[in-house]
């Protein structure tokens, strides 16, 4: 079982810290990224604050679609955002220390005034691999690999 957390200082949302390896950005290294768990997001995305503080990307890289292999227009309730799609591996750590590794892609958000303060999101490309349980009363969140 993988255990996330709630953090009242950041609002009422659930979070999960995950290891992410993005060969085009981090090389063979893994970086820790704390994601908001968002069952409304189709895809996992890392927004600029985490791209800078966790992945070591620079603002100029995040602002310019040139240099990224693929750009996707994402749509949210707040409007459209450009994302740069690149291959990534995710390492989700069970409470017993074992790791669930999932291969796929990550969307990295283009840096704009509107995205600079957005949290990174775990979406359905990862969540579909898990039995997701959220208990609003305690509150608690756990994921168990299907």
């Amino acid at each position, binding site marked *: 079982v993988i255990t996330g957390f709630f*953090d009242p*200082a*950041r*609002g*009422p*949302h659930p979070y999960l*810290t995950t*290891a*992410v*390896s993005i060969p085009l950005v981090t090389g063979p*290294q*893994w*970086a*820790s990224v*704390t994601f*908001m768990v*968002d069952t*409304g*997001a189709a895809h996992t995305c890392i927004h*600029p*604050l985490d791209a*800078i*503080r*966790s*992945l*070591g990307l*620079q*603002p100029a890289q995040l*602002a310019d679609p040139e240099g990224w292999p693929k750009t996707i227009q994402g749509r*949210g*309730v*707040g409007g459209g955002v450009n994302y740069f799609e690149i291959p990534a591996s995710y*390492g989700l*750590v069970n409470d017993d220390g*074992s*790791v*669930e*590794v999932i291969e796929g892609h990550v969307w990295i958000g283009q*840096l704009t*005034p509107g995205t*600079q*303060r*957005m*949290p990174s*999101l775990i979406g359905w490309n990862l969540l579909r691999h898990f039995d997701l349980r959220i208990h609003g009363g305690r509150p608690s969140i756990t994921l168990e690999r299907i």
Partner: protein
Amino acid sequence: MATLVRPEPSFEEVAEIRRYWDANYERFLREYPEQFVAVKDGQVVAHDPDLTALFHKLQDLKLDPRTDVAIEFISAEADTLIL
């Protein structure tokens, strides 16, 4: 599946950083509302409402945003987020 995954920073370090922000959030909210704040060894070394401007301030201080400081956006509006 057991796989060797050792992220930087470690999950324990991430949790420690989060506890630091939580313990000091009210103070930062009074002093740096709606700003990005960078902290090194418990001291604020840079703050700015613009992430790019904060990055350049850290560059001027020869500080790496990934390894030398902890950065957080301080806001009273976290509970109004609709994604």
